[in-house]
């Protein structure tokens, strides 16, 4: 009967109930999108790194798994590493930012093909000249590019799109290494070196050899290590993790505020009904229970709507910015986001609920 009363109360003011659920859904969606984008982009980076086909990655001093700037490694180091025992192939690569989330890679295409197995082209093909550009399918879709077209918004240089490749390997944009080195003033320098061992069993030996050869300043990872370090906790020294915590806190506050206002309004509107229930012998707990139950239903409804909106957000991101942003769907966060919104709504419903429970029945019955 309590459940029926709660549902009938919610149905009685459908706009108020739906609007409250929608507002509760907003922080749920924000949390799920933020977590989804963080994890999605990190997973995408890991997938692209694995797509290179290397066993070991050498990064210059002063970098981390998530930060890489400039091209401070002398290119001749690539040749020296190539000569180390059990090294099947070592290739240098220069990476330069185009936007805050998009990078262009300068590669020696022949060597890259040898290490990764090569691009699979959906249109066009490999570089034909020094000003050629290979873009992946996501970048091409986002920027509506086709093979043979020219672009000028990458490093203010006129490039010809020689090919559109399947995604999942390297950066979204690849150009000949020499061109990128010259354009960025890094002639004969690379940003990082990828190494393939002759046999997987020899990876530890190559690692040891490279550490001894390059010294402790260089960051040397097996690709497994590197991809496992691409976590939310590692981004900007835990800053992303803290940011997510802040968003979660904001979610609780929004849920709290929305439900506080909504339920306070509901209690005011239903003062007389509360008086009727009290006249029938309803206890304070009974009244409080009804208010809290309404808030919980709105919180659960808001969570479901919020989860639905996170799918909508992902669809929008995939449609509009396939090369810039990757949002993962994170079901493990659904109960967490639900718990956060429930905490907010219960806190928000507590004051209106307690004030309803404490109402004087005579005054409540006289309320117009």
């Amino acid at each position, binding site marked *: *009967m309590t459940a*029926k*009363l709660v549902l*009938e109360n919610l149905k009685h003011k459908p706009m108020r109930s739906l609007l409250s659920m929608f507002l509760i859904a907003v922080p749920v969606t924000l949390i799920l999108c933020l977590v989804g984008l963080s994890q999605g982009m990190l997973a995408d980076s890991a997938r692209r790194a694995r797509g290179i086909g290397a066993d070991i990655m050498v990064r210059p001093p002063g970098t981390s798994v998530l930060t890489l700037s400039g091209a401070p490694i002398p290119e001749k180091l690539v040749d020296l590493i190539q000569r180390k025992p059990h090294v099947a192939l070592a290739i240098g690569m220069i990476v330069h930012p185009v936007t805050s989330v998009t990078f262009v890679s300068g590669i020696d295409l022949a060597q890259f093909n040898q290490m990764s197995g090569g691009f699979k082209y959906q249109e066009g093909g490999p570089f034909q000249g020094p000003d050629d550009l290979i873009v992946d399918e996501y970048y091409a879709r986002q920027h509506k590019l086709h093979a043979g077209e020219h672009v000028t918004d990458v490093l203010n240089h006129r490039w010809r799109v020689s090919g559109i490749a399947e995604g999942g390997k390297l950066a979204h944009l690849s150009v000949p290494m020499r061109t990128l080195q010259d354009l960025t003033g890094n002639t004969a320098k690379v940003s990082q070196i990828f190494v393939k061992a002759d046999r997987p069993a020899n990876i530890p030996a190559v690692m040891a050899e490279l550490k001894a050869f390059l010294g402790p300043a260089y960051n040397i990872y097996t690709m497994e290590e590197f991809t496992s370090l691409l976590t939310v906790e590692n981004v900007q020294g835990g800053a992303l993790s803290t940011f997510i915590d802040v968003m979660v806190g904001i979610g609780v506050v929004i849920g709290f505020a929305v439900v506080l206002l909504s339920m306070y309004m509901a209690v005011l509107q239903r003062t007389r009904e509360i008086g009727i229930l009290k*006249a*029938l012998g309803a206890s*304070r707990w009974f009244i409080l229970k009804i208010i809290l139950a309404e808030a919980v239903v709105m919180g659960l409804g808001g969570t479901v709507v919020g989860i639905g909106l996170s799918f909508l957000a992902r669809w929008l991101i995939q449609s509009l910015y396939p090369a810039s942003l990757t949002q993962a769907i994170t079901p493990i966060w659904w109960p967490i986001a639900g718990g956060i919104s429930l905490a907010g709504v219960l806190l928000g419903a507590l004051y209106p609920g307690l004030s309803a429970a404490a109402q004087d*029945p005579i005054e409540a*019955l006289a309320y117009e």
Partner: protein
Amino acid sequence: MSEPLIEIRGLQKIYRVGKVDVPALRGVDLDVPAGEFLAIVGPSGSGKSTLFHIIGGLTPATGGSVRIGGQDISSLSDAGRTELRKTKVGFVFQKFNLLPNLTAADNIAIARHIAGRGQTVEPEFEEVLKLLGIAQRLNHKPAALSGGEQQRVAIARAIVNHPAILLADEPTGNLDSENSAAVLDVMRDLNRRLGQTILMITHNPEAAAFAHRTVRMRDGRIA
């Protein structure tokens, strides 16, 4: 002679309005035997409603005593008065006071639910519903019922838990004469057939005529 169902002695109620004490009841003495249909009349401000509110456990007394079935209710805590409302009294109000979101049947069921009696009415209560003439209207919400029907649903809700006392505060105040007569007939029937003790506040002498006895209040006392 058996003990009256309701025994009121020296009942006082003082409301505090700002910094001023306003006496609403100034020493009411009243006995009501079980099974009586009592009308209470008097001008506005005479203390009728306050007397009802104290007997019904909606507010505590300031002084004096009220015994219902031998139990002194004047010293009950808030929880004790809640229990009293749940088990010993049923209210009928001038404005019907049905829960607008629930059907007539659910308005009756929630009274049983609050009293911890389950939701389904007893088979014999079906007869009462027929007597009230609302058996066919139970699936409607209050907005779809006439004033007379709403008041009869309110009466059904008030007596569904078999309270010792039915307190009716101007039950015909919002009804036309035809519906007023129907509601008063029903109350008299309930009193006669079920022995339901009824206290009814009214301004209407015709309504008071349905009762066994009429007491008049003036200035917080029984006149």
